[in-house]
């Protein structure tokens, strides 16, 4: 009994040390994966651009969750991006639209939106794995544009 308790304490200390070392090592070599979608929203049944396809069901559900009223959402472009730790990544979504994602800390990212080369929005957001930040605004003919940034890893 005496021997077992003593060895248990040593084991606990060893496990704690190992966890600390592993977390430090893991934290050093990390990229943060994102998926950015440029979406066009309309009440029309189809998009004038035949290359546009409806967004996937999950994205559609998430847009509905934030009370967006459009009938259809069409995917203009989807880009996967990898943001290096403590770094930034620029993602071009169209010839007029691009975003920049910069990691601030483990869960917080600064997302900047540029329209026609000008800064439109800069937002600090807590984005955990699986969460989505949707930027949106009006577009001509009573339609809207959205940029959906989802952290995939």
């Amino acid at each position: 009994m005496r021997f077992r308790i003593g060895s248990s304490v040593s084991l606990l200390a060893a496990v704690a040390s190992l966890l600390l070392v592993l977390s430090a090592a893991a934290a050093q070599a990390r990229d943060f994966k994102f998926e950015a979608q440029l979406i066009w929203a309309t009440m029309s049944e189809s998009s004038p651009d035949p290359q546009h396809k409806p967004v996937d069901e999950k994205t559609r559900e998430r847009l509905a969750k934030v009370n967006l009223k459009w009938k259809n959402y069409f995917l203009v472009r989807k880009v996967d991006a990898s943001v290096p730790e403590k770094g930034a990544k620029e993602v071009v979504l169209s010839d007029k639209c691009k975003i920049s994602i910069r990691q601030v800390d483990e869960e917080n990212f600064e997302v900047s939106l540029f329209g026609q080369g000008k800064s439109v929005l800069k937002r600090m957001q807590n984005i955990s794995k699986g969460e989505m930040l949707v930027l949106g605004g009006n577009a001509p003919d009573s339609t809207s544009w959205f940029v959906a940034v989802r952290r995939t890893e």
Partner: protein
Amino acid sequence: MNDEQQLKLQAFLDGELPEAETREISAWVARDAEATALLKELRQTRQAFKSTEANVQLPESREFYWSKIQREIERDLPAAPPQRPSLFHRFRRVLVPVGAFAVLVVISILTFPRGNGIDSEMAVADSEAFTYQDYDSGTTLVWVSYPAER
């Protein structure tokens, strides 16, 4: 003959067996010469004791008599001296739960996601933007008044 059988014979002789078992032993003794011989020997021994030793009558009941002996035995036993735990034992008693707690704290810090940190701090070229958040789906909408051109 084994020990159990010998004890059965003794109990049979003393009349301490239930009726069914008594009949069994009787039948066994009737057909087994060794059992018969042992029973005879036990009877003779008992008879010898009876005739030589005076029967002592206790002035009190058997239970009361034995309980007195029990009390004397317990009274005479010295109480175990209280042991003062050594410094090592005292230290270990504290160290084990503290160590376990420390490990739990480390694990929780490393595995659980941190709460919302900075969140929603905005520096915009648009003062009319508004935010809508759906916590269930983990979706945040930021609506800006920046219009897209054709």
